[in-house]
């Protein structure tokens, strides 16, 4: 049986992890290589590096960061943030990413999903969807949540699947940073409408939140602050998930 995955997420800017990481036992808590290895050591099943840089110069630095992380990592690595073309995706894969996540560019140009899937395979084509509740639907947001699109997230997930995506990374804009748990109605709506694996993101503050997400169809959970603040190690989370009857990879 496939295991439920725990995926720490690191925001990287100019080769450094940003968004307050509070580890005591690391020499340099801002180094993405050291932090990635640290999470792998704790039993992370996969890692997501999110490029939050704005300039072209910094994007080149991101490629070096990915190369350095890849050298140390023996688990899958997904890279997202600012990918606009199939050439961008190819550069990230060449640097050592196993999967590439596309967001705004896929909304602007859905054919990019099909092109990436045909060239690199569905298994490395992740479509990231940011959405918030708007009346009766979940509205897609792009450009880091600043632009509301006239698109329903549930329909968009189904379309991404038909275009050749291999995985959906679903982030609730309403819940992100609130620590009030994942948006379960949105998660259920998307997992019902599309047969791809879905990674739930946004709002996790406890193992109970993760259990809820898995019970609502998530194949994986993404979490940042719960790990960065050193509230819990990945291993402690996996132990508690196991106690709650969720099957996780038996390494931590």
């Amino acid at each position: 049986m496939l295991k439920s995955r725990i995926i720490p997420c690191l925001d990287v800017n100019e080769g450094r992890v940003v968004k307050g990481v509070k580890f005591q036992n690391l020499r340099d808590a801002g180094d993405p290589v050291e932090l990635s290895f640290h999470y792998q050591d704790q039993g992370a099943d996969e890692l997501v590096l999110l490029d939050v840089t704005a300039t072209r110069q910094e994007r080149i630095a991101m490629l070096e960061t990915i190369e350095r992380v890849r050298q140390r990592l023996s688990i899958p690595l997904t890279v997202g943030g600012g990918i606009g073309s199939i050439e961008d995706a190819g550069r990230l894969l060449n640097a050592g990413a196993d999967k590439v996540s596309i967001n705004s560019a896929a909304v602007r140009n859905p054919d990019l999903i099909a092109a990436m899937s045909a060239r690199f395979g569905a298994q490395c084509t992740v479509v990231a969807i940011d959405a918030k509740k708007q009346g009766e639907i979940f509205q897609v947001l792009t450009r880091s949540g600043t632009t509301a699109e006239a698109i329903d997230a549930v329909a968009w997930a189904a379309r991404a699947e038909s275009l050749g995506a291999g995985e959906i990374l679903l982030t609730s804009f309403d819940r992100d940073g609130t620590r009030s748990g994942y948006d379960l109605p949105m998660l259920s709506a998307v997992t019902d409408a599309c047969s791809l694996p879905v990674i739930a993101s946004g709002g996790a503050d406890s193992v109970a939140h993760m259990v809820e997400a898995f019970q609502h169809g998530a194949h994986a959970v993404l979490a940042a602050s719960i790990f960065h603040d050193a509230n819990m190690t990945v291993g402690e989370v996996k132990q508690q998930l196991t106690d709650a009857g969720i099957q996780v990879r038996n390494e931590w």
Partner: protein
Amino acid sequence: MIQIINTGVANIRSLQAAFDRLGCTWNLTVSPEDIATASHVVLPGVGAFAAAAEAIDQLGLRTAIIDRINHRESATLCICLGMQLLCESSEESQSAKGLGIIPMAITRFGDGVKIPQLGWNEVRPLDNGPYDAGEAYFANSYRLETAPDGWGAAETDYGGTFISSIWRGRTLACQFHPELSGTWGESVLTQWIEGITC
């Protein structure tokens, strides 16, 4: 020296990094001579069955790979699509011609499971094999349904069982990615490198 066949359609950075961590030297090759003479050869594979099969033919590597694997005593590792290519054909691309070393066809996972299978799953050797049971990272939509005659095999559950790895002589084929399967995956690579004959 490990020779990695570079069909140009697979993402092999993770594999190179894994060999680096294990202290092994590697080289990318498209030379039939390397494939015939190297102590260790890897046939990696990510992407489409047809594209990889075409690349093998365009590079003129088909005979060299088949001869090497049929010789049995040469250490050869086939990963993911590389394992599927050992078969005659795949439901993924009906007209494409696999290496045909195994007279079987690759099929798509059935209804009732998420496709692709993406994530960690248990690998259980059915016969005495080159590694112990463990958990491996998979990223596949197609699979071998039953074990081929004359090969040892491991199985995995995903909407019923499928064959997640096979071995014969010093050839090891894995549907999973040992290079992305943590410390267990590294132990699988080490066993293959060090040459356990099955």
